């Protein structure tokens, strides 16, 4: 089921005018900010499909910028997000693309600063709901509703089992899990949706396991 909760239907509370183009876009921006983990210096945003055609009228640009500033869908500052981003020294550029994507409302965000970069692709599936479908070239399926643990690791036997057993020891239930890798033996990504939040102690325990390159919680 794409929609799990009644509040996906009756909600979110948001700034108009479009749940797909404004609220969903704000949530994509905010997820990208969380994955990046800090305020970026530069953000290059590529817009596809309906996003590319109508982003100015729907305020998709200000919503994405608002999300990057970590604003929620109902935050009235979204209306001035582009100006606020400028004041905070974040350089955001928009690039409409004619390239065809699987979903009509797709945005690709490249967040950068001197420490590094992250590339996140999100789709806005309607009613303010979004999914992150790609992270640094890895395919993903994240609803954005449940807590998500992202673990970058070496593609080797036992890696998944070790992470799962740490979660089990802390009585954290896995709702959905996906493992993607670019090629055998190279870097891989575990994305784990959990029923309970994954606290900092559990994160650092996972980070200290052998073969783990990075841990982020969304």
């Amino acid at each position, binding site marked *: 089921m*794409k929609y799990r909760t009644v509040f996906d239907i*009756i909600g979110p509370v948001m700034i108009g005018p479009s749940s797909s183009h404004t609220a969903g876009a704000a949530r994509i921006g905010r997820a990208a900010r969380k994955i990046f983990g800090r305020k970026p210096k530069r953000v290059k945003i590529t817009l596809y499909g*309906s996003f590319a055609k109508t982003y100015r009228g729907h305020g998709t640009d200000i919503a994405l910028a608002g999300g990057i500033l970590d604003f929620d869908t109902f935050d009235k500052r979204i209306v001035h997000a582009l100006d606020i981003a400028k004041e905070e020294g974040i350089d955001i550029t928009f690039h409409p693309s004619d390239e065809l994507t699987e979903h*009509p409302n797709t945005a690709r965000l490249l967040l950068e600063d001197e420490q590094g970069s992250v590339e996140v692709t999100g789709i806005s599936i309607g*009613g303010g709901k979004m999914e992150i479908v790609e992270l640094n070239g890895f395919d993903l399926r994240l609803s954005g509703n449940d807590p998500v643990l992202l673990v970058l690791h070496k593609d080797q036997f036992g890696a998944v089992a070790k992470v799962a057993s740490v979660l089990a020891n802390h009585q954290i239930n896995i709702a959905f899990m996906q493992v993607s890798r670019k090629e055998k033996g190279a870097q891989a990504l575990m994305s784990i949706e959990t029923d309970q939040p994954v606290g900092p102690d559990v994160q650092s325990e996972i980070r200290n396991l052998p073969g783990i390159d990075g841990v982020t919680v969304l």
Partner: protein
Amino acid sequence: MRFRTMAELVEIAETENLKISEVMILHEMDVMNRSREDIFEEMSRNLDVMEQAIQRGVTEDIRSHSGLTGGDAKRIQQYINSAPVLLSGKTVLDAVSRATAVSEVNAAMGTIVATPTAGACGILPGTIHTAAKKLNSDRETMVRALFTAGAVGYVIANNACISGAAGGCQAEVGSATAMAAAAVVEMAGGTPSMSAEAVAIALKNMLGLVCDPVAGLVEAPCVKRNAMGAAIAMVAADLALAGVKSVIPTDEVIDAMYKIGQSMPVALKETALGGLAATPTGRAHERRIFGTTDKSE
């Protein structure tokens, strides 16, 4: 207490002797592991936001940034109060004016609740508040009505789609109209199967509706489609309460909507490439607002 289709929803409600709203509340408690009070409280806050948007829309001079929309909710209210005769009646026009109010607030980047989307956010508040006034409903009944609407939206969203970009305006305003029709049937004391009939009757009258926003803005024709969605929802609810049944079962109407949406050209799915957006006047507004030249495929 899990359901996937309208038929399953009605069957659970009628065999357990529950309202649709109660089935949705129990489902939510189960799936999201939350208490009844917690869920009810969140929905009640959504109702507050809807009330505030209606109030703004019918009293303030709302104007969108583009200048395309605003002020009609107030205009309709003045007409209701001053016209010697109302052709469609005060109740329908009240629902229409309140739906317009919320939709105008949305277009002006005000605060609203997406029900199920922002583009269709006027219909549910407009109909529920009007029905509540007419029926003397208490607040709990109104909050419950949002759960009933939510149950219908949940079925449509999971079996078809609710966004204009995915399925045209039939998916967006159509879903909202169907949700609102079911909700006001329950408010008026109708049975779960009457709510389901209201969904079918309302949605079938939205089939094929394209999403063609002028200049890509959620304004024209969106605000007026919210207005008319509220009118259709109120009349569909009355038909269902009268015992009128849909020849095609509700789930099949939803499926037909989905398939129509899939076969609709991209130009008519929120891209502002076709329909009203592509008329000479639509293009002229686009140039005035954005100072751009005509778009073409």
